[in-house]
Each structure stands twice: as structure tokens, then as C-alpha cells.
């Protein structure tokens, strides 16, 4: 692989979990529910995927378990915020904090203190013929199945949001009372959207443990869920926009590894500058902050986002 191929392929690999989580969050937010607990749901998926993968020896089983864990957490969140109309930010924080404790304690209880347990890796799956293409083949067609899923889902969600059902879902996020009057079941739609978002977050988490590392660490999502939230805003609540936004964040992350591997030396104005590794570790967060600062205000989310819908009697 050439340096360029390596960089682009790495960028795509690091973007994939962000894309998966962000696509789910787009559907949820378009229906009017802001789910800041995708961080916790990713962590839940990462752990469930790891545990089920390690127990069964099958990465596929791990993936299924992660999706189920994400869906279950989505149900908890939707019950609180859609059925009970609880505050979405508070409930989201609750799930995030609870999942740090739950996954951390379960991991120690099952795998012990100095865990060396590993889960089976979700192998890369080169697509015949296409993967033989120069540059493009290596970057796009020699990847984990989940990367292909990202592409397919982005397209699928884009089409869905244009369908009559998708229009109904979007109406729930903009004018729930009008959607209700037009016969859309707002509560049910939002519930389903949140569960879909949770499932995607679970799969995104499994990507970390099954495709990237094949091991689990306490609080290993380390803010990726929140970066995915930023991806949704930067991508303007649009699936294709989110893919592009995620690639920028993935690129920043890959750049961090790239610098670290090269002894964190950079040439700035002709002199060698030593970059401390902590600055590189902070890079994805600083980039998120910078991107939001530059673009957040100019973008508007769905109008009823974050507002519980209570049907007037």
C-alpha cells in the first residue's frame, strides 16, 4: 500500500463507527428526539459485541448481540422520553453514566481484573474485481463488511427520508401536531426512530471491539458518540452530509495516528517541532469544537427537536 492509500483507507476505517452512529442519530433527530446517549449505547454495543463474540467465537454473533443491546437501550430511552416525556438531555446523561458503570463492572466481573480476553475479529472482505482497482480498490473495496453497510445505509436512509413514510417521520420532527392531525402516529414513529438509532449506535460500538481492536477497555468509546452528534450537525441532518462530515473527523483521527507513528515531529516553517502526544490525543476533540464553532450556528435542526409531544385532549 502506498502512503496515500494507507491514509485514506485508515480514514475510512476510523470514520465507519461515526457514520453508523450518526446515521441512526439522524433518523432519531429527524423524528424530533435528540439522543445524546448514543455514547452510552455505543459503549453498550462495544461490550455486548465483545462479550458475545468472545463467548461464541463468532464475530457475527457479537454483531447481533451489539445490535440487540443497542435496541434494548433505545427502548429504555424511548420509554422515558417518548412515552413518559422525560427530559431528553437528562435521560441521555443518565444512560451515558449508567453504561460506563454497567459495562465496566460487567467486564471486570466476567473477564477479571487483568483481562487478556479477545474477541474474534470481523475480517475484512475484499469485493471481487472492484478491490483490484488502483487506489480506489484498496481504499473502498477492501474493507470490513460494516464499512459497506455504512455506504448502503446512507443511501437507504437518504431514499427513505424522501418516501411517504420518511416524510411522515420528518413531519414528527418539525410539526408534530400537524403530523398527528394528518394521521401520523407521532409517538410510535419517534419510538421506532429512537430504537433504530440505538441499534445503529450498538453496531457502531461493536465496530470498535470487533473490527478495530478485538478487545474491550473501560469507557473505550471516549467521546466518539458525542463526536457523532457533532457529525450530525455538521452534516446538516442529511445522511450523505453526515458521511462527508464523518470522513473529516476520521481524517483528523487518522492524522493523529500518522503523526504518532512518525515520532510526532512536524516541520513548521522549516524547523522541527516536537508535538506532545497529548496534543494529538486531544486533536479529535479540538477539531470537533472548531468545526462546530465555524458551522453550528448557521445550521438549523428540525424545529421540534428535543421537545416532547403531548397530545392535547
Amino acid at each position: 500500500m502506498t502512503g496515500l492509500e494507507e491514509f485514506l483507507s485508515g480514514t475510512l476505517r476510523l470514520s465507519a463507527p461515526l457514520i453508523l452512529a450518526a446515521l441512526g442519530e439522524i433518523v432519531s433527530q429527524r423524528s424530533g428526539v435528540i439522543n445524546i446517549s448514543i455514547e452510552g449505547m455505543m459503549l453498550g454495543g462495544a461490550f455486548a459485541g465483545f462479550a458475545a463474540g468472545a463467548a461464541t467465537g463468532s464475530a457475527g454473533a457479537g454483531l447481533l448481540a451489539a445490535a440487540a443491546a443497542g435496541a434494548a437501550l433505545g427502548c429504555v430511552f424511548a420509554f422515558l422520553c417518548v412515552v413518559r416525556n422525560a427530559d431528553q438531555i437528562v435521560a441521555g446523561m443518565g444512560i451515558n453514566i449508567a453504561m460506563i458503570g454497567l459495562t465496566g463492572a460487567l467486564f471486570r466481573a466476567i473477564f477479571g481484573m487483568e483481562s487478556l480476553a479477545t474477541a474474534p475479529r470481523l475480517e475484512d472482505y475484499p469485493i471481487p474485481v472492484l478491490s483490484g482497482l488502483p487506489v480506489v480498490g484498496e481504499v473502498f473495496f477492501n474493507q470490513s463488511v460494516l464499512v459497506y453497510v455504512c455506504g448502503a445505509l446512507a443511501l437507504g436512509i437518504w431514499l427513505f427520508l424522501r418516501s411517504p413514510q420518511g416524510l411522515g417521520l420528518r413531519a414528527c420532527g418539525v410539526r408534530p401536531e400537524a403530523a398527528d392531525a394528518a394521521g401520523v402516529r407521532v409517538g410510535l414513529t419517534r419510538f421506532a426512530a429512537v430504537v433504530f438509532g440505538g441499534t445503529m449506535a450498538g453496531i457502531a460500538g461493536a465496530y470498535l471491539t470487533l473490527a478495530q481492536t478485538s478487545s474491550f477497555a473501560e469507557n473505550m468509546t471516549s467521546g466518539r458518540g458525542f463526536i457523532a452528534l457533532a457529525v450530525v450537525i455538521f452534516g446538516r441532518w442529511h445522511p450523505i452530509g453526515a458521511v462527508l462530515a464523518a470522513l473529516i473527523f476520521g481524517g483528523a483521527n487518522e492524522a493523529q495516528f500518522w503523526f504518532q507513528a512518525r515520532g510526532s515531529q512536524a516541520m513548521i516553517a522549516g524547523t522541527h517541532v516536537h508535538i506532545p502526544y497529548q496534543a494529538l490525543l486531544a486533536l479529535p476533540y479540538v477539531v470537533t469544537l472548531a468545526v462546530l464553532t465555524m458551522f453550528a450556528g448557521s445550521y438549523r435542526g428540525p424545529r421540534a427537536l428535543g421537545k416532547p409531544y403531548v397530545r392535547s385532549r
Partner: protein
Amino acid sequence: MRDRTRELAGTLVFPLAGIALIAGIILLGGKSPAHGFTALISGSLGGAFALAETAIRACPLLLAGLGVTIAFRAGVWNIGAEGQIYVGALAVVALAPALGMLPAPLAVPAGLLVAAAAGGVWAWVPAFLRTRRGVQEVISTIMLNFSAIQLVSWCVHGPLKESTGQFPYSNEIPATLMLPRLLPPTRLHLGVVFALAAAAVVWVFLFRTLRGFQLRAVGASPEAALHAGIRTERSIWSAMAISGALAGMAGAVQLMGVSHILFEKFSPGYGYTAIAAALLGGLHPMGVTLSAGLLGALEAGASAMQREAGVSTVIVYLVQGVIILSVAHQAARRRAVTEAIKQRGAQEV
């Protein structure tokens, strides 16, 4: 009667589920839940040492929890107390050589002020970004948490590394900067008094001053506050600055009262626990005092549980998360009840 039973069931479902979950996890690890829970209680309430541990753990939680309360009251979701704690402690350590030259009665307040300033500035940034650039503070404060943690990591590995240059932590702060012990040989320190005083001050500020009223008005209804001539932008800025200042002081109290050195992972998530303290305390200074005490007991007890029964302390996050979820659930129920009463009232009129 049936309503009362259902109400009670609704209140208890999350805490009971939480306890069952914890017992299950302890069992899964091959330990005895009864043993674990006994250790939890004796480690937090059994005797003077246990009570002192509970109090000193409640200290940073109370201060940061008061900070979270002020921000939430103003309608700003400050999830950034963790980062503000780090920069507060960092500022004290960075200026410790200078601060240490002051006589003790001046050094301690000066240290707290420096930490408050650092935390306040760190928290003001997301408030500014929200009001001027439309950046959601839920995301920006979290990003600043991660950045602050890396900043401290870099400092203790680099410029602030201890004098021999061997270990990744700071020099011990000068003795004049250390908070005096109240009841030796326990570790109980003056910070407890300070945190309780802060709770009283925050109560007066929120409920007895015009600024406090304006701040709550902005949180309750930004549009109405704007129409009433309240400068909402300034209210949000000052709420976040005060919020961050309190969290910064929480970092200083932990540093000056307990650890005396700064290191990576200096705060084991006090900033996140503070959110649980604030919500459980009903965003009221007195309530937060009680909930900080309860969560402090839980932290102290969890350490004992880890020593005695081998249960990882991360389990307290599960408890905190469950507390937050049940608070969210309860608040929604209460709102639904008042709505129903209002509607019934409207029909009768």
C-alpha cells in the same frame, strides 16, 4: 388507592432495578452480594473514619454539584464540570510556587480564587460559543472535558513534572496551601466547611438576589425573560462562569485538602457525579447538599466494597446513572400530573 400504589411502584422501579442489577453483577463475579452491601455501608457510615471519608468525598461533589445546579437553573446544560475541576486544580499547581510564598491565611483563599478563575473561564467559553455561535453546550463542554484531561496529562508529563523528573505527577503543593485537618487522625479537612458555606451562598444568590432571579427566569423561559427586559445572553454567561468557578474550586479543594499533588486521572469522574448530585438534589442547594452527602457515602462505601468484596468501583456509575434516569422519570411524571390538574381546572372554569 390504586393510583397511590402505582405512584409508589413508579418511584421504586428504577432504584429496585438498580439494586437487583448490582447484586447480579456481584454474583456474576463470584462474590457475595450481602458481603458487598455490608462493606458498602460500614465503609461509608461505620465509625468516625468512614464518616470522615464520606464527608471529604462529598466535598468536591457538593461544590461541583452547586455549579451544575446554577447552570441547569439558567437553562445551560453544563456537562463540563469534569474539565473545569481539572483546570481549577491545574491553575493552583501551576501557581503554587508563587502562592506558597503568601502566609497561610492568605494562601488558601488565593488558591481557591485562582482555581475559581480558571474554572470560570473554561466554562465561559462554551457559554460564549452557544450564545454567539449557536454551538450546543452539551457537545462543547464534553469536548472541553477531554481537552482539559489531555492538557493536565501533558503538564504532569512535561512542564509541571515533579522535581526529580521521574514520575508523571506534580510536586507537592507548599504546606501553606494545604487545607488544615479538622479532626486528626481522620482526613477531614476545612474544605467541608467551605463547601457547606458555598451551598448557603448559592442558596442566597439563587433565591434572594435579583441576579439569581433573572438567571432562573432565563432558565424557565428564555423568551419571556427576554420580553421582561432581562439580558439573557449575559445571564447565561454569568451562570456558566459561576458554575465553572464552583467546579474549579471543587478541583482546588480536592487538591489542597486530599491529594496535595496533581496527576493524570486526578478526578475519577467527580464532574459527572456532580450532575447526579445536582439532579438528585432537585437543583436546590439544600437538596444538593444532601445528595452530595449520599453520593459521597456511596463513593466511600464503593472503595470499601472494592477492598473487601472485590467489586470494582466503576459500579457507582451504574448507581448514579440509574439515579439520574429515575429523576428524569419522576420529573416527567410530576409534570404530567400538574398538566392534568391544570386541564381539569380549565374545564371546570
